[in-house]
């Protein structure tokens, strides 16, 4: 309890400022200073959020989004790490694929939706593949970078001690590139969320993005805020959860994404 008290004293502004803001918002909407049609009171939003949760609507949409992110991330991770490692190890492959990737990567992934729809059956699969595109490139890039930035001396020392082929790979190259790979996975997961919400807005009737857009179209403003809150929460959990996981699993790593 005393530790909590001290923590609270240290973070009083960080804890207090959102509370003050929420209070001010509540008051301004209640007194009509803010138009309630655009800025419903936080308490009203909370009630709507509870309703969405109680009648199951929210869980259906949340589930759909999470399943899509999960599949897309798995697809991007397996292919991205695999191809990234291969590109890091074989120069020919790297030099061949680099220019191709460099052109495709900066294209905003939502634009791949039509293209993917031509390639695979439209519907759920197309949504998942589109969501995976940008994550894949990010993961492949960071993995390649991870292999390439390993100290040459370390590799040489390992070969002198007789590590070759598979052993060299599992004992030196893979661990050496792990921090970079993890950063790529983290960024990739974040991007998957960004893309899936956009794709859901355009082309699906289920998922958090779809719920958000539908709430806008029928002007259920409170539901819009509630959905936004849930999306933000998913983003925060994915982002900070993985950062914490990385700090625990790879404590020696200085995050390359933060530079």
């Amino acid at each position, binding site marked *: 309890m005393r530790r909590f008290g001290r923590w609270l004293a240290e973070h009083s502004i960080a804890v207090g*400022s959102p509370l003050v803001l929420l209070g001010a918002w509540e008051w301004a909407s209640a007194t009509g200073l803010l138009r309630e049609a655009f800025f419903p009171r936080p308490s009203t939003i909370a009630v709507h959020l509870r309703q969405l949760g109680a009648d199951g609507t929210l869980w259906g949409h949340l589930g759909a989004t999470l399943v899509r992110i999960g599949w897309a991330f798995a697809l991007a991770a397996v292919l991205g790490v695999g191809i990234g490692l291969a590109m890091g190890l074989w120069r020919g492959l790297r030099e061949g694929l680099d220019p191709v990737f460099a052109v495709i990567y900066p*294209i905003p992934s939502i634009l791949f939706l039509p293209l993917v729809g031509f390639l695979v059956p439209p519907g759920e699969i197309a949504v998942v593949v589109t969501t995976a595109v940008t994550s894949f490139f990010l993961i492949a890039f960071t993995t390649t970078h991870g292999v390439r930035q390993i100290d040459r001396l370390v590799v040489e020392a390992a070969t002198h001690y007789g590590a070759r082929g598979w052993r060299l790979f599992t004992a030196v190259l893979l661990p050496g590139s792990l921090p970079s790979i993890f950063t790529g996975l983290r960024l990739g997961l974040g991007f998957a969320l960004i893309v899936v919400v956009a794709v859901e807005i355009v082309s699906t009737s289920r998922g958090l993005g779809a719920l958000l857009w539908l709430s806008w179209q029928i002007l259920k403003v409170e539901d819009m805020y509630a959905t*936004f809150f849930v999306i933000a929460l998913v983003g*925060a959990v994915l982002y900070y959860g993985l950062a914490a996981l990385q700090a625990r699993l790879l404590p020696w790593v200085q995050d390359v994404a*933060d530079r």
Partner: protein
Amino acid sequence: MPVALLALWEMASRLALVSPRYFPAPTTIGAVLVDRLAAGDLGAALLVTLARLGLAFALAAVPGVLLGLLMGIARPLRAAVEPYIAFVFPVPKIALLPFLLIILGVGEPAFVLTGAASAFFQIVISTLGGVRTMDPRLLEVGHNYGAHGARLFWKVILPAALPAIFTGLRLGLGLALIALVAVEFIAAKSGLGHLVYRHWQMLSTPEMYAAFALVGALGLLLTRGLRALQARLLSWQEESF
């Protein structure tokens, strides 16, 4: 390798191994691209997207860098503002679009602000990171040589944070492009993103791929160009993502 891939695509499409309706030959797309550029409508869409991007970037960069620097210097401000930045940063900014559409009405301000929001948070976070991770010895040395207040800021803090600020601006520009193209795809009635959407709906695939290629070229130019610029301006800095 890219040439080989294009040649393979060309052949597959010409020989109808893949449906030419969905995958027109690259030469067809190239012809359409030149054609539409000459006709001017593709160029017009490109200009619309570029104008939005420039405006969104300016709206994000100036307040973003300022806020990031202030947060880095003034601790109470950081404590007060950081929770919001941290909460909104991982949110897909496209989710802000319906709010802006409601508040500002359907139109340019809402589109541009969605793009600006996308860049803003990245720029704030990078700038703040740049100030916070600077070598404390630099500050001490500055102090010892009598630099205080504004002088300390201009001579020591700002130069030390510059590489991070530039990285933030570069990443921010990329994010703004992504958000804007998505906004155009979803809601706007102009710009390259909308062009891809419209030609997708009409299944005029060569035009769709032409607009698609132009977005790719734009993205490539921005990412490569800024990276080269960063390497030249801040040549002492290590290459990073």
